[in-house]
């Protein structure tokens, strides 16, 4: 039957040869190569849960009277967006589970992109021929951050609505065109004519997911075409890939991983409350509360806005609010420009234009690793700075102290990190066999009293891949009995 199906398809599409190659495709096994899969499967969960949510959510700022089962809101006039989201949370079966899973999936999606991007950076996987894939990846990171912001702003609650106000002011701060852009996007002076909610909705459920989905296809396509990188090791060269074949092993592992990722996100979605908008209340532009932070992946921008001094330039009949424009427009522009351009920038320093299919161990490139660690620390300090008020409250110190501490450490800590990381890399390289189990030296004495030492045998498992890699076999001719038994399966005659 399989034979007939393959022939049917092959007669129409010519897939047999290419298909065979696909099935034999080799994927290296290192654990850090799976980080991108966390992002991929979180995206799948986002789409699945997102479709469900979009069947109930009403993208409208039009005011209605809430009639659902959350008592304190009964009889209140709220926007339909807010009312439908509270309705999803209280009056739709499994609604809250799906809504929270969706929100956790967004946080994990962006978190896993961050660790995946760090892995790519620290192992030098962005070098030729993979610069294009790096650019695609950074673009997806940017679009993911934007889409996350749009998504958590859809319920029109007090916390996210404040974020929208801030976004409007950031747009307004752009010289020459800022006020025009703000009025165009929002349909008027803030809060606009209400059109911003449906516009956010369209961007969030259609335009950006389609672009991100397309970029994922490009990202994976490039990966298939160029084949995955691998760490240097026994039998691994620049001209081969050693690992497990796509079918059946890799498909089994990755399918299982997809289920497990979905499971973790669902468990978070039902056990850990996230964005309880019924406790925040609906958005009114003249109301505000405490602990108004954006979601974690926007934290670096919020932190930058908080620690920036109040430098506003006024002259010749115009105002340029640098305290907004610099941290919220110029700085992210520089950040993403820098990320996009990194493969090119590194080439300027290393003068390395060769093709690389083997990865670097991070310790073997101490300058790049130290620089990357310092940059990570810099963005982490900014991220931490977005919780100044929560920290002042929690640690019982004055806001003044917290703010000035962050203004200083946001520069000092990355510098310290650079030197410490550089040192650690060099020391790790200097220590031979670091991280591996040591072999015992067996000291023996001969009959005549002479000492001799011999290194003990390696323990089983010390050299995990003792076998040499072989090509994927084309045929495994098994008789029916051998099919049932065969390696790994034992049948006992009763």
């Amino acid at each position, binding site marked *: 039957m399989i034979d007939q199906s393959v022939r049917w398809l092959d007669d129409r599409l010519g897939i047999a040869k290419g298909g065979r190659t696909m099935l034999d495709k080799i994927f290296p096994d290192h654990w850090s190569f799976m980080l991108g899969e966390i992002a991929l499967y979180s995206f799948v969960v986002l789409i699945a849960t997102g479709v469900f949510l979009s069947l109930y959510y009403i993208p409208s700022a039009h005011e209605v009277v809430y009639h659902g089962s959350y008592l304190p809101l009964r009889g209140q006039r709220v926007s339909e967006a807010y009312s439908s989201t509270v309705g999803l949370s209280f009056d739709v079966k499994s609604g809250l589970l799906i809504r929270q899973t969706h929100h956790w999936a967004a946080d994990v999606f962006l978190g896993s992109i961050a660790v995946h991007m760090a892995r790519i950076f620290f192992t030098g996987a962005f070098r030729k021929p993979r610069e294009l894939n790096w650019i695609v990846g950074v673009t997806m990171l940017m679009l993911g951050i934007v889409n996350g912001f749009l998504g958590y702003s859809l319920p029109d609650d007090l916390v996210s609505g404040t974020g929208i*106000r801030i976004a409007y002011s950031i747009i307004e701060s752009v010289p020459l065109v800022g006020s025009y852009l703000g009025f165009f996007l929002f349909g008027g002076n*803030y809060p606009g004519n209400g059109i911003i909610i449906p516009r956010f909705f369209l961007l969030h459920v259609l335009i950006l997911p389609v672009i991100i989905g397309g970029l994922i296809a490009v990202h994976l396509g490039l990966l298939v075409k160029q084949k995955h990188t691998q760490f240097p090791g026994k039998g691994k060269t620049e001209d*081969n890939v050693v690992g497990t074949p796509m079918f059946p092993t890799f498909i*089994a592992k990755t399918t299982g991983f997809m289920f497990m990722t979905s499971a973790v996100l669902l468990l978070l979605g039902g056990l850990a409350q996230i964005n309880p908008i019924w406790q925040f209340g609906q958005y009114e532009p003249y109301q*505000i509360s405490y602990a108004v932070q954006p979601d974690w992946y926007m934290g670096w921008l919020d932190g930058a806005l908080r620690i920036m001094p109040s430098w506003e330039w006024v002259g010749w009949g115009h105002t*340029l609010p640098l305290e907004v424009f610099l941290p919220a427009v110029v700085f992210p522009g520089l950040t993403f420009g820098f990320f996009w351009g990194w493969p090119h920038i590194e080439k300027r320093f290393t003068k390395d234009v060769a093709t690389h299919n083997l990865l670097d161990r991070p310790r073997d490139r101490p300058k790049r690793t130290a620089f990357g660690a310092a940059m990570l620390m810099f963005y982490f300090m900014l991220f931490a700075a977005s919780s100044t008020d929560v920290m002042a409250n929690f640690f019982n110190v004055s806001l003044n102290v917290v703010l000035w501490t962050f203004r200083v450490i946001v520069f000092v800590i990355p510098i310290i990190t650079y030197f410490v990381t550089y040192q650690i890399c060099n020391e790790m390289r200097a220590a031979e066999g670091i991280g591996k189990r040591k072999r015992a030296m067996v000291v023996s004495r001969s009959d005549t009293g002479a000492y001799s030492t011999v290194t003990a045998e390696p323990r089983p498992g010390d050299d995990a891949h003792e076998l040499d890699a072989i090509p994927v076999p084309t045929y*495994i001719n098994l008789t029916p009995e051998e099919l049932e038994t065969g390696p790994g399966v034992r049948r006992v005659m009763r």
Partner: protein
Amino acid sequence: MSDESTVQPTAPLPVAALDDPHQLPYAKHPGRAQAVAVVAMIIGILGCIGFGITYWVSDQTQWQAVTLGVGLLGLGFGVTAWGKYLMARGPFVEERHPFNSSDEEVKEMTAAITQRGGIVVARRKLLGGLFAIGSLAFGVVAAFPLIRSLGPKPGRALFVTNWRRNSQLVTVDGRPVHKNDLEVGGVLTVFPRGFAGSSPDQTILLRIEELGPEDPPLSLASPGRSDWTALGYVAYSKMCTHLGCPVGLYQEQTVELVCPCHQSIFNVLAGAVPEFGPAPRPLPQLPIKVQNGFLVAQDGYNQPIGPGFWERP
């Protein structure tokens, strides 16, 4: 290619040896590994069935999550364990064939573009140029409906609010504010009558002292204006000059307004001048007076309220 449906190859092809260690499972005790995977899968199935039951029986989000989560976790773990421990362990290798074409082919491609294209461009310059101009023209005008039609021009909207001379101060419910409504240390969000709830008009009214009509007015340091206060009341725009958040936190003892978004602190007794944090300008002060026992505005704001923008002088 013209074979009938037959599986047998026509030429000898590599066949794996049955006892090839590469075909063996990764697990040292495959039976045990299989048992673990079987248990995991059964837990998975039970979990999924459990979710099915929970969905009909209860509305508890937590039970739904635990059943479905454990279900998927079990199934996932089982399949993964199957792939990792029970399938052929390998390792297998695949050769990388350099995908860049030969020097010849690259030269041919470049030639195809430059030479064939070059002929066209050289012979039909006019057509090529016109098409380029046309595309550019289309590109430019296509931006007009895409961008300009989205919304109105700002005009004077950012420069004026609805506060006018004799605008009555009302609460968000539309109730006029009487001169005795606030105690010392009290604070209230107010709007001009008819525009309750309107974002640009949001104003914060504070009672600093209880002063009589004969008493000297509240003393405010510059840029605050004492003649814009009334009976110990002072009013400022509630929209933060940093990013527009409502400056809703009033610290009574230090007489400061704090913006909760990025912690700008404004000195109420000195015209709401920012003393800490990223806000660049003081909160504009609304001039108020008492008329027939109720608070009204003497005039609108004397400057644009809220965050800075290019056209702000």
